[in-house]
Structures are given as C-alpha cells and as structure tokens.
C-alpha cells in the first residue's frame, strides 16, 4: 500500500486552521511601535508551516500567498520593516484571505483568483514600499523563502520507521524538492541523499504531515564534496542526535539581521548557532502534540451512551440488592457501594470530555470588535472574563452566532461615539466586557457595555407601530423583552453592521433551543447587560415528569413558569372550541395534552388536573396534565436515530425503571393552538409578549 497523500489533507486543514487562528491572536496582541520578537517569530513560523504543507499538497495559490506573506513577516522580525497599524491591518486581511483559500481547498475548489491577485499585489507593493532592499525577496522563487537559505546543497535525510511499501512514495515526495542522488532503504530506515535548495525546516514541515518529526534526521553535505560514505552510514548508528547538523536552518531569533546575509555564503556558521534553538522548538512542539488527542465526537458520544447505560444498570442492581441482609451479604453490599461511586465518577469524567473552554468562542471577538470599532469610528476597550469556563462542545458551536449578534448590537447601538461619550462625561473609549461563569448547574454568559442603554420610548413606539399591545406603565424588564418579540422589526436601526444577519428574536430562539434563556438589564446612560443562561450540557436536561392518563412525559424545567390548580370560572371558551385560562389579568391559551396526544383514560376536566404555565419563544400558554410526578435530571436520547420526528416531542429519555419517556417540545406545542385559533393567535401572542 502506498501512502495516499489525500489521507493527510484533513490533518493539514485542521492544523492550518489552528495555525491561522494562533496567527490572528498574535497579530492582535502585537504592539506595532514595539513588536515583541517572539510574537513575530510565532507568526512567521505559522505562515511558514502552512506554506510547507500547502506546497506538499499542491495548493499553489495558498503556497504563493503564504510565501509573500512570509517574506514580509521575515523582514518585520528582522526589523527591516517597521510595523504600523496599517500593516497589521494588511496582515490580518492576508490571514483572512488564507482562511478563505484554505476553505476553498477544503471544499475541493480553487480559491478566488481575483482576491488572490489583489492580496498578492497588496503584499508586493508593501514589500516594495516599506522593505529596504526590497523586491529581491518578493520576486524570488517559492522554494527560496527569505529565511537565509543556502544555495543548492546536498543533504542526507534519514527517516526511521518507514515500511518498504511507503519508502518509494516518500522518496518520490522528497524528489519534488530537488534531485535525489541516492536512496537506500534498510531496517525500516529510509536514507535519501538529496540535492536541493530547500531548507531543512521546509522539508521537515512537509514531511511532518506524513511522518513524525522525531523520525527524521538531517545531515548536511557540503556541495561538491559529496561524502559518499555519509549516504551509507551504518543504520545501527541511528539515531545519533549529536550528528544532526541542520543544513540551512533559519537563523535563530536572536541572530542579528546581518547573519541572514552571511548565511547565504557561509551556511555552516549560523547553522550551528541555530541548532540548539531549533531543537528546543522541536521539543516544545512535540510535547504540546502529545498533550492532546483528536478523537471523533461519535466515539465520545458512544462512550457517554455506554456510561449512561452503566449508571442505569447500576441503579437497577442497587434497587435489587437494597433489601438484602447486610450481615449475610456484607461484601456484596460494600461492592455495590464501590460500584456506585465508581459509576458516578466515571460518568462525570466522561461528561467532561465533551466540555471545551469558552476561550474557543471568546477568541473570535477581539478581532471582530477591533474591525467594527474601526468602521464605526468608536473607541472600544474589549475585555473577556472567565475564558476557562467550560461548556459542552455542542453548545459552544451554537452560541457563536447569537453572541456575535449581541456583541455587534452593543458596538453599534450601545457604545456611543467618542465625542458623544465625552459630552456625557464618560471616557472616550467605551468598555465592552464578555464574561462567562458557572452558576449552579448553568453557565452564565454576559455581554455588557457602558454605552447609552436601551431607549425605552423608542422601543415602545416601535412596538406600537408593529401592533404589539403595549402600555406606558410597563416595567422596564417587560419593555426590554419586547425587542425579542417575533416580528419586532429593527429596520429603522439597520446599519451596515447589525442590520444583516439574525434578529433578536432569532437570538432568543437559538438560545431557547439550547435550553437556555436571555435577559436584558439596561440603564439609560449607563449601559446594557445581556445575560445568557445556558445548561452545561445538551446531553442532560433538567426535567419535570408529569403523568397524563397512564403515560409519563418530561417537560424541560426551564420552560415551566409555574403550576396551579384552576377553578372553573378561570376558564373561558373562544369560538366554542378552544379554551383560554385567565391568570392574573392575562388570557393564556389552554393546551390539553390528552387531546394533543390523544391519550386515553386522562382526566378531561381541567379543574381536576394540574395546569402548568409554560413559556417558549416569548409566548406563554397553559398546559393541562393529570399529575406532577417529580423533578429529574434526564439523559436526552435522540428519537430520530431509529424513528422519525414526532410532532410535539423533542427527544426521549430512559427512566430509572428502564422504560422510555418522551420529552415534550414546548415551542411546537405552543404553536399548536395558534394554528387552530387562526386570527386569535395574534392576540395571544402579543399578550404573551407583554409578560
């Protein structure tokens, strides 16, 4: 079997994506007037690695772009190019372009060539304008990055642990860098003598997608004096770290700029100086690689499932052994206790695998805030708190869009322009804080700004225009909730920034789908805080079990506002068929669960059962059930794995006795009466929005 290079595409895409996101972080942190050499080096290394990979896989456009980018970065780190905010902007733009190109390749299409040319020209112009001794670097060939490369020289590359089948393809791979003078494969070690202009780092970067870094050793052979014996060094001597003399490494970061020029003529000198640094870097990279492991979500979910089963089996065993005599079955019972503890610990440990730090989400925002603030002509100090707070991966992915929208809103409508802020006696730079913290079994995410706050009058008048039932006597909290009402148009406020994308009602719906809710706190002139409360994980739901007839259903606890017994006089009928419940001045549609699900033997008289007031998507309604059973944490199981979607049901779960209970889909149930009631729905909706 030969090495199919396409197998490594995915690895490359993932690694390149991480490198790009690191690059962006570094670019944002860098201080143009006094750049940190280490940061510039990190950015350079990221670009360099991407270039190497792109070259291997034949992603020419990506390779060319990174090459130009790399040249500039190299000048910057050698202080030949003075950085300023404009250049950082161009660098960020380049990074975006690289992301786009990467995505294009991922979708197996060619990147946008117009954009590519534009960015190339920008980079070239920049190199010519700013760079001293310009041109040379940017026009040089791809295989000669401005990293102080040697001219063509021979080197011996040994790769350990290579099976015979793979040796040929690896050698072919290496042949792409230059001329293979000699190749030999013995005892799983491939030895190739290569004449090439490519540096060791480049070859290493390319090969690292195929073989591990520590499998490779390099040995330079001075050009022309090709030492024949070096090609046939006895393999049992390998690996000999001390022999490892990089042929033409990048100059060490500490090396003065002149040494780059020197290295061209005297490659051996800086090579020795750089060797320890290169080794150190390689060591650091290796240790961070080993610290984490990529595992598919599917496998993790399977483990979570199995552990869930184990816990259910354990509790069944516990029930079965609970009335055993402790004297005669002492060891069994202590074993049961042990099992219970172990099962709990195991479940916790497994659930934590899915957890990811909020860092992943928060890291996107400094860039967004920077760009938006620039466009809006506002000054913003952006701060994130609680980056290490962990959240389920499924939720992490889904929280990004709502958060982006809220941050945009804060920047666009919340924080004022510097002159207005100064006039209001506030510092010119607004403050935007994104924070995450744990609160019981939930996670609390807050977006707060010290801007102008929400405009109560404007929201009220907008709501009136939209035909929502509002009054001036409404509490602030109720007014703020209006902006989440479906159909509450923000058209008048549409700007280039926050007009596009999702509306606030979509934000609220997205968050409700994740089992969370949103609140707004706002004070005129002092700012707005939006709080999102989310459950820690999607896999477990806090639920209330209810009985209807002989059947048990689970209601998500977050949707329940209250439960009550009703008196006959609280119920009125609408158009003879549908009923509404009068609760403290509001009329809520009554949804009879036994009727929706056609449940036999249920209590049909609403006054004999229990009514739960539930809320979803800003609408409240009353749900009639027979009896409340209790509150549980349930493990959510997908019903659609083996069956189809069931209207009114969101998922299923397994109860303590091993039977299946269905989890109610509250938003779907809330729409059910609306469909039946037609024109009356509008009235109920606005009544609900008022609440």
């Amino acid at each position: 079997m030969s090495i199919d290079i396409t197998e490594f595409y995915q690895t490359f895409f993932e690694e390149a994506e991480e490198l790009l996101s690191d690059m962006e972080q570094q670019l944002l942190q860098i201080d143009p007037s006094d750049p940190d050499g280490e940061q510039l080096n990190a950015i350079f290394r990221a670009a360099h690695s991407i270039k190497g990979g792109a070259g291997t896989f034949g992603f020419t456009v990506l390779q060319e772009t990174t090459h130009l980018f790399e040249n500039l970065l190299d000048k910057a780190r050698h202080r030949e190019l003075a950085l300023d905010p404009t250049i950082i902007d161009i660098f960020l733009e380049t990074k975006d372009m690289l992301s786009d190109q990467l995505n294009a390749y991922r979708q197996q299409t060619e990147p946008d060539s117009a954009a590519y040319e534009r960015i190339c020209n920008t980079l070239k112009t920049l190199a010519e304008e700013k760079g001293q001794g310009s041109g040379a670097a940017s026009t040089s060939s791809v295989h000669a990055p401005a990293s102080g490369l040697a001219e063509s020289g021979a080197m011996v590359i040994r790769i350990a642990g290579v099976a015979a089948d793979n040796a040929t393809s690896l050698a072919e791979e290496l042949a792409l860098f230059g001329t293979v003078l000699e190749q030999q494969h013995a005892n799983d070690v491939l030895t190739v003598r290569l004449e090439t202009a490519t540096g060791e780092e480049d070859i290493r970067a390319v090969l690292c997608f195929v073989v591990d870094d520590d499998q490779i050793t390099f040995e330079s052979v001075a050009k022309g004096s090709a030492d024949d014996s070096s090609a046939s060094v006895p393999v049992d001597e390998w690996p000999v770290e001390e022999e490892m003399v990089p042929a033409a490494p990048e100059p060490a970061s500490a090396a003065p700029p002149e040494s780059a020029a020197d290295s061209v003529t005297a490659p051996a000198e800086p090579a020795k100086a750089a060797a320890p640094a290169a080794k150190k870097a390689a060591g650091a990279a290796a240790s961070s690689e080993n610290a984490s492991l990529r595992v598919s979500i599917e496998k993790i979910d399977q483990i979570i499932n199995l552990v869930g089963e184990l816990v259910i089996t354990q509790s069944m065993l516990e029930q079965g052994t609970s009335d055993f005599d402790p004297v005669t079955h002492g060891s069994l019972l202590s074993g049961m206790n042990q099992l219970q503890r172990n099962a709990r610990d195991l479940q916790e440990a497994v659930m934590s695998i899915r957890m990811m730090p909020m860092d992943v989400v928060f890291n996107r925002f400094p860039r967004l805030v920077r760009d938006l603030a620039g466009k809006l002509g506002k000054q913003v100090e952006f701060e994130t708190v609680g980056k290490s707070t962990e959240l389920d991966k499924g939720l992490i992915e889904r929280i990004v869009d709502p958060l982006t929208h809220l941050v945009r809103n804060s920047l666009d409508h919340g924080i004022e322009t510097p002159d207005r802020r100064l006039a209001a006696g506030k510092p010119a730079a607004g403050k935007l804080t994104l924070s995450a913290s744990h609160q019981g079994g939930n996670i609390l995410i807050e977006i707060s700004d010290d801007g102008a706050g929400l405009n109560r009058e404007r929201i009220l008048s907008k709501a009136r225009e939209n035909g929502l039932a509002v009054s001036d006597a409404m509490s602030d909290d109720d007014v703020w909730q209006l902006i989440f009402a479906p159909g509450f148009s923000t058209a008048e406020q549409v700007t280039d920034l926050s007009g596009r994308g999702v509306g606030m009602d979509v934000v609220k719906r997205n968050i409700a789908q994740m089992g969370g809710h949103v609140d707004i706190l706002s004070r005129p002139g002092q700012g707005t805080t939006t709080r999102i409360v989310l459950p820690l994980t999607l896999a477990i739901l806090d639920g209330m079990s209810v009985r209807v007839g002989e059947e048990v259903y689970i209601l998500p606890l977050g949707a329940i506002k209250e439960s009550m017994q009703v008196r006959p006089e609280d119920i009125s009928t609408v158009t003879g068929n549908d009923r509404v419940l009068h609760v403290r001045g509001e009329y809520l549609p009554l949804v009879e669960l036994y009727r929706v699900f056609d449940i036999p033997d249920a209590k049909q008289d609403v006054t004999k059962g229990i009514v739960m007031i539930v809320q979803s998507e800003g609408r409240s309604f009353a749900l009639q059930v027979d009896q409340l059973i209790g509150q549980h944490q349930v493990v959510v199981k997908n019903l659609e794995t083996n069956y189809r979607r069931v209207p009114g049901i969101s998922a299923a779960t397994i109860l303590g006795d091993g039977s299946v209970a269905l989890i109610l889909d509250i938003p779907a149930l809330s729409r059910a009466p609306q469909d039946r009631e037609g024109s009356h729905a509008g009235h109920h909706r606005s009544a609900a929005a008022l609440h």
Partner: protein
Amino acid sequence: MEASAIDKVQLEGEGHEFLVFRLGAEEYGIDILSVQEIRGYEGVTRIANAPSFIKGVTNLRGVIVPIVDLRLKFALGNADYTAQTVVIVLNIGHRVVGVVVDGVSDVLALTGEQIKPAPEFGSTLSTHYLMGLGSLDERMLILVDIEKLMSSEEMALIDKAA
C-alpha cells in the same frame, strides 16, 4: 429488486438463510443477516398520533427503538401481548427496528430453485416487498424483503426526507 435478490441467491448456490416466523397461520421468512436479536415484548412507550401498527418505542440497552406489530400491519392473527410474544430486532441500514410476530420457528437455508417468483395478489402486502415464495417440502414461506418494507413510506418509520 426482487429479481436481483433471487439472482443473488441463485448465484450463491448453497443457499441463503432465512429466519422463519409466524403471523397468524402464515409463515414468513426474512434474511437472517438483517436480524440483530430476538427478545420478549416489554415496556413499550406509546407514540402519539402514530399509525396503530407502530406500538411505540422501547429501551434496548440505551437505544430508543421503535416497535412495529406486523400482525396489525398485515391484519393477521390476534394482536395480543403475552409473555410469549416475540420481538425480532432488525438492523437495517444503521437503523434498529423491533418487529412483533406470533412466533419464531427456525432458520432455514433455501437454494435458488426453492424460491419461486411471487404471483400478483392482494393489496395488504404488495409484491413489491416480496423476494418470492419459498417452498420446503409441504411448507410455503413468504419471503419478505424486510429492508425495503421497513424503509417504505407506508411503514411511516422514517421521515420522507431521510
């Protein structure tokens, strides 16, 4: 599709194994390879507004599995549920479905010659879902393409989009 299934059986020569079960007085056979396990009928949770032959869902070691009563689907036999009621758990294209039958009798290998094409008949079980009729001594087995039947729209087990 039926034809190709028979072709496959004929090509294999030594035959094809079928799990034989009863529905009322009739004997049916399904490809043994689609059978995951056989278990008793217990603890089924009803699903609202589903066709009557879909009894509901049950917990099969942590997996939520729908249960279909073929006796109700084909209007055969008395659909009563006792300790002897048998559920055949099928694994069809990554989906797991349980099927209630009157009883499982045996596993039989049929050769290509023993499988006759099914004649056109009644509407409850369209010939579309039949692989043919198997004859073994005096017994006649109705060979059902269970995969096709279970993924059909009339079984209402899968969303149309899926």
